[in-house]
């Protein structure tokens, strides 16, 4: 399965993703510069973490206009698996490919830590075969990761089970203490209506080997291998999953 990792000026998680796919999964992977527009050679895409365009205006706000983003949108609308990590999650919400927004952490601190998240939804290519309730230990590193959506959107996300990851304690309990940034409902990651686009603040690509502190992230990255191209042809949900904003 061929992975594409999008690099924007200011991305810093792109090489982490490259290493994780190469060394952790042993799959072919390429960095894709933000000016490229042909993504047809890829089976799945990772939008990595970092500070694209210096986080000017709002995190992810400028990256959304990069030439490559139109192709990412087309790829997502065709059902291709897309994973947005940290800044990648912020970019996908700014682009309207995922609902909600990521706000400055409630603590006002840049939070750099290992956290626990619980898998809530296994109907995405990135969580397939991870039973709901599975607890993963993943690192976070962000200043703007507080998930927010208005009440109606939030209720709909919960009703449609589109919350994919939730911050929990080591025993899997949703508590305020386990919430590193003040995200509503302890939300760490969500998906689009169809389920093929997933965004999360924690960094699975930085947890691909015990040598780097943990390997739970591989379970997320490798899930897509099982999904294969089948995902592209089996739409879930009703809408096309865009213009949610």
């Amino acid at each position: 399965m061929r992975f594409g990792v999008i690099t924007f000026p200011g991305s810093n998680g792109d090489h982490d993703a490259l290493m994780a796919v190469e060394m952790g999964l042993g799959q072919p992977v390429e960095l894709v510069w933000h000016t490229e527009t042909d993504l047809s050679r890829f089976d799945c895409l990772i939008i990595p973490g970092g500070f694209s365009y210096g986080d000017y205006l709002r995190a992810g706000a400028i990256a959304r206009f990069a030439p490559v983003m139109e192709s990412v949108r087309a790829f997502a609308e065709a059902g291709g698996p897309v994973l947005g990590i940290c800044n990648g999650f912020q970019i996908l919400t700014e682009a309207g490919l995922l609902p909600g927004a990521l706000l400055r952490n409630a603590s006002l601190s840049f939070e750099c830590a290992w956290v626990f998240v619980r898998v809530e939804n296994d109907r995405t290519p990135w969580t397939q075969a991870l039973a709901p309730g599975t607890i993963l230990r993943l690192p976070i590193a962000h200043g703007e990761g507080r998930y927010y959506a208005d009440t109606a959107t939030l209720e709909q996300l919960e009703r449609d089970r589109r919350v994919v990851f939730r911050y929990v304690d080591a025993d899997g309990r949703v508590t305020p203490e386990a919430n590193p940034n003040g995200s509503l409902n302890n939300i760490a990651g969500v998906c689009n209506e169809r389920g093929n686009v997933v965004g999360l603040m924690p960094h699975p690509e930085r947890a691909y080997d015990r040598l780097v502190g943990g390997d739970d992230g591989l379970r997320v990255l490798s899930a897509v291998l099982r999904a294969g191209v089948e995902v592209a042809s089996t739409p879930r949900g009703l809408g096309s999953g865009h213009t949610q904003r």
Partner: protein
Amino acid sequence: MSSTQGWRADVYVALKPGVNDPQGLAVRDGLHRLGYDEVSQVRVGRYIQVWLEAPDETTAAARVREMCERLLANPVIEEYRFQVVRIDAGH
């Protein structure tokens, strides 16, 4: 020549009232520590100036509103207001 005129939009962007603003809270606490006990609330936003050409104020305002919706503000979390002022050529 053409009938376009120069305008400047002063755009104010802030988090919606219901959205927790930790920056504002931190600034409020700072003001309290300086002795400004009368301060009850602070919210921190963004001020953006946009210079543009448009045939009239209505058109200028319509364009700026669109800019706010599409980029200057994120309607999911932010609200905005702006005023458009006429500027003389050369400014």
